[in-house]
């Protein structure tokens, strides 16, 4: 079958533009990475690997260590995802399979609206409204029931790791839900109907067919949320308490890489201080890369990408 010459040229342009875009993004990311390394070089030189395991943050004596920030980032992100991912899954399920169209549209729009709330508003709402709520109702309840666990020690101030994690989960929920909803929608009806035709319940179809089919897309949704949670600054810094100590308790104050970076960057003028802050950003970049590598190793071998592939 002969393809028209204009079509072939069109295809060449098409491929060229797509390649340019794909390579272009990669170049931008590499550019950011390179400039990160360049700016953190003085700090890398001075502290080496100890930067990752030291728990000191003293701008005055220029002793810096990222440990408490890394810990805070990881813990708050884990809390956020542990809450948000299951919620997103069932909400997406609700929107696609359960709710009648007249309900699904406004509910879907409402969930998406959570994404439109500026992050500083999450911070301020968190500080002025949610933290008092946590201090008065949630934290004491947790302390009374589970207080024997070191996880819930400490005075209930309303702020801290748990509060930050919950607010982060609210922020990432709309992203994960919206993408999961679209993934569910894109599963061909014929596949689902085949499952229903065999007598499966809605939940069974979802679990065994829809999720499997769209697994890669669902993971993409989680990564979208992860990306948001890990890099969030404003909302976290308002409610996490900004302490450079490490504590097991979820009620305790902590800090995250992004919040420390955002808090201190604009006022830092000494070169080593600035360099250490940028190195924090580099560490965050590396953490995201590592999580990705881990996820890909775990999933990549077993799941073929469904649907596309020509």
């Amino acid at each position, binding site marked *: 079958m002969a393809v028209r010459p204009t079509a072939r040229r069109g295809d060449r342009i098409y491929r060229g533009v797509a390649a340019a875009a794909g390579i272009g993004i990669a170049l931008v990311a590499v550019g950011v990475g390179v400039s990160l390394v360049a700016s953190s070089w003085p700090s890398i030189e001075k502290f080496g690997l100890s930067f990752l395991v030291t728990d000191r943050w003293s*701008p005055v004596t220029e002793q810096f260590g990222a440990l408490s920030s890394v810990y805070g980032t990881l813990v708050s992100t884990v809390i956020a995802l542990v809450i948000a991912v299951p919620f997103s899954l069932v909400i997406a399920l609700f929107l696609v399979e359960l709710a009648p169209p007249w309900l699904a549209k406004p509910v879907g729009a409402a969930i998406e609206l959570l994404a439109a709330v500026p992050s500083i508003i999450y911070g301020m709402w968190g500080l002025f409204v949610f933290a008092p709520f946590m201090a008065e109702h949630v934290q004491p309840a947790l302390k009374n029931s589970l207080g024997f666990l070191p996880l819930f020690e400490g005075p209930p101030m309303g702020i801290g790791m748990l509060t930050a994690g919950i607010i982060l989960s609210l922020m990432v929920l709309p992203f994960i839900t919206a993408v999961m909803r679209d993934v569910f929608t894109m599963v061909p009806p014929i596949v689902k109907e085949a499952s229903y035709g065999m007598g499966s319940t809605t939940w069974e179809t979802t679990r065994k067919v829809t999720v499997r089919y769209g697994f890669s897309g669902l993971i993409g949704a989680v990564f979208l949320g992860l990306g948001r949670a890990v890099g969030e600054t404003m909302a976290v810094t308002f409610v996490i*308490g*900004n302490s450079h100590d490490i504590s097991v308790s979820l009620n305790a104050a902590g800090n995250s890489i992004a919040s420390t970076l955002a808090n201190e960057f*604009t*006022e*830092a003028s000494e070169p080593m201080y600035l360099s250490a802050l940028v190195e924090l950003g580099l560490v965050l970049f590396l953490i995201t890369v590592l999580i990705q590598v881990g996820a890909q190793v775990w999933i990549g071998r077993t799941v073929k990408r469904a649907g596309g592939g020509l």
Partner: protein
Amino acid sequence: MNRSVPTILAMALLAALTLSACGESTPPQAKLDEPKAAGDEAGDTAAAAEARKGVMLNGAGATFPYPIYAKWADAYNKVTGLKLNYQSIGSGGGIAQIKAKTVDFGASDAPLTAEELDEAGLVQFPLVMGGVVPVVSIDGVSAGQLRLDPEALADIFLGKIKKWNDTKIQERNPDVKLPDTEISVVHRADGSGTTWILTNYLDKVSPDWHEKVGTGKAVEWPIGIGGKGNEGVAAYVQRVNGSIGYVEFAYALQNGMAHVQLQNKDGNFVAPTIESFTAAAESAGWKSAPGFYMVLTDQPGAGSWPITGASFILIYKEQADPALAKQMLEFFDWCFAHGAPMAKELQYVPMPDAVAELVRGMWRTRIASPAGSPVWQ
């Protein structure tokens, strides 16, 4: 596929963008371009007014003086038509941006040393002052009731005094019933000039603090949680019983917080007021400060507030555009001469006239065009 609607939208968007990118949007407020006629305060001539049209000065830096700079810029604009855009990106940002020459002037809450100034080719001068106020939230203690001496304040922030009814505090407050509550320290999470001023003071009065922590816009706080901005500190303090924090004076007033009386260098307990801040400024030896490097903490004077600070402007010694530089200095001159009432309204302390004169003298002698002719006469 119905392409028409998205296509139309795309064209409309492109059109709007092209217009905005190429055009000057005409400001709807004509008064921006019309300076007041004869009798206005800046002593305008028609030619000078013409020269100011369309000029926008950019400044960036310290967050502390942001409201008053905004107010002065707005008032000056109404009087002369000169546009001044000041953005609070932080003292560090201000220093970085003036060094990078992306702004016309920088602003910093912490002064640069004479060496740092020379190295960068900058000069600095103080433009406005304010006070940092420790605030507390203790059951049964009202505003201005609690008295703290310097060692007690330092020891609280060091974590050495853990409860409010500790003898070191109680002995200074014989008629106040202090509860047996733990002290919760609240400090700033973000780097700030306010922290710099407070830690500078603690550094001066407490050898322990000097050894363990030091002075900085961000420090390694021995204990406590960090609130984001003055707002964050105020919020934490207000909600946690038994807490102590520190905020700029305006925040303490606006939020109706319980301030503390401090013992100054002369041994008197003073309350934070415009008068006590001004007292600290007036006793300071500005004349002998190289490059106006003057920190107003722990100043002598019967009524001086011990944690006062000035905010500084940074500009280049050598001004490539002398006409623009003159307009910039005229603005600052106007702030010195006419800005005092507005400053007081917003709880800032204007520079005393004597200091303003010293600053003008510095302009005359230090700021010049590349050819060497002074910008300010």
